[in-house]
């Protein structure tokens, strides 16, 4: 089991008077927009000549959240190695810590598909030559920024994970790595987020502020206005960079 480490990204403190207007607006949801695929993506796809039906026509976006879904064939012998990488990632926590460091991933997962579930006829049993590595991520920011960050911050981990997949060009340089992920990025038909307008950093900050506020509330119950005003100023100073 992965133990979560909460690391808050320290933003540059700023005087409250300069808070942007939208930071005080009540939290709200927005309608989903369908991203237009960048031209380079289409060019890449047509060059590679994907077979019919494998999606490549867009990126699922919900508010600030973007979905990525990748499924790649694993080389023979790769699955036990991957299990070891993930086991180490969970227990040594290096992978987890690196993902926290990336700071814009809400949830991500890797799944090893070693067999396709069978439900009896008329389903035909799948006899695949390979195991498949399924990856999904829910992150804020653009697709390009995301892959750039993966490539820059954790190239060796990307190699440890996708190195056992066919066609993986290496985590760096970023160009071929992007092409590879793009080529294998599956089309999402419906994407949902419960808080589409909040970035990962905003969620972490809000949770931290909420916790400190509860302590503040308990501590200041019964304070007279003068004492309260001093405590309030201290509280605001302490959480200012998370507001």
């Amino acid at each position, binding site marked *: 089991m*992965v*133990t*979560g480490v*909460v690391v808050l990204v320290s933003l540059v403190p700023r005087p*409250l008077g300069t*808070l942007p207007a939208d*930071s005080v607006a009540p939290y709200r*949801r927005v309608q989903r927009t369908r991203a237009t695929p960048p031209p380079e993506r289409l060019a890449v796809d047509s060059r590679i000549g*994907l*077979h*019919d039906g494998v999606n490549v026509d867009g990126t*699922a976006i*919900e508010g600030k*959240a973007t*979905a990525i879904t990748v*499924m790649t*064939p694993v080389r023979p012998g790769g699955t036990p190695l991957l299990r070891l990488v*993930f086991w180490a990632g969970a227990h040594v926590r290096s*992978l*987890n810590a690196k993902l926290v460091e990336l*700071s814009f991933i*809400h*949830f991500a997962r*890797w*799944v*090893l*598909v070693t067999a396709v*579930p069978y439900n009896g006829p008329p*389903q*035909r049993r799948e006899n695949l*030559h390979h195991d*498949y590595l*399924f990856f999904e991520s829910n992150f804020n920011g653009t697709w390009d920024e995301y892959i750039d960050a993966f490539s820059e911050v954790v190239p060796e981990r990307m190699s440890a994970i996708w190195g056992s997949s*066919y066609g993986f060009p290496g985590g760096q340089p970023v160009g071929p790595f992007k092409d590879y992920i793009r*080529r*294998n990025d*599956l089309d*999402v*038909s*419906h994407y*949902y*987020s*419960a*808080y*589409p307008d*909040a970035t990962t950093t905003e*969620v*972490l900050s*809000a*949770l931290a502020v*909420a916790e400190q*506020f509860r302590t503040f*509330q308990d501590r200041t119950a019964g*304070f*007279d*206005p003068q*004492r*309260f*005003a001093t405590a309030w100023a201290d509280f605001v100073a302490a959480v200012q960079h998370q*507001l």
Partner: protein
Amino acid sequence: MSNTSGQAYALMVMTPVRDGEQDALRRYLEGLPSGARSPLARLGGTHFARWLVLPDLVYQGAPQERDSLSSAYLIFTSNFDGELERYLTDLVTLLPAEVDAIWGRCINCPRSEDPDAFVGYLRHNQIDTAFFFCAYPEATVDDVLAALELRARITALAVRAQGLDPAALHAAYAAEFAVPAGSG
């Protein structure tokens, strides 16, 4: 396997789509309303979820041996709060029409009128997660929404309170957060 992280659960279900239903299923999913009107908004505890239809596997070129699926597959993944059994029961109970319109296009899937059978079908087709990452594994959807809302109110008060004298500040705070006035 690592389907959980803190209180969060990573679900992945992969079910075979009946021949001829693939396009209709994709159109149905793409036509679902988004955001707060998504059917998944009615399924409490869902942080992020997605449906996708996998028509076939991507071929990477030699030396990989080409794999082809015998049918299209529906993949559903969700990152949600708490227990799997409760979540799947909520899914079939709260979204029966969508469940039948979506998984009803999959081979041998029971209808929503038989919730136990439907839950059993999804569990049979569940694929375990090898590595699950959550940035905030102990926070439920309700925790996140409440924290975002609280932070917005605190920020608004902090902006408004600049320049207020202690009595006015205390009154504004008490009004905003409904606390009894200080006993002084």
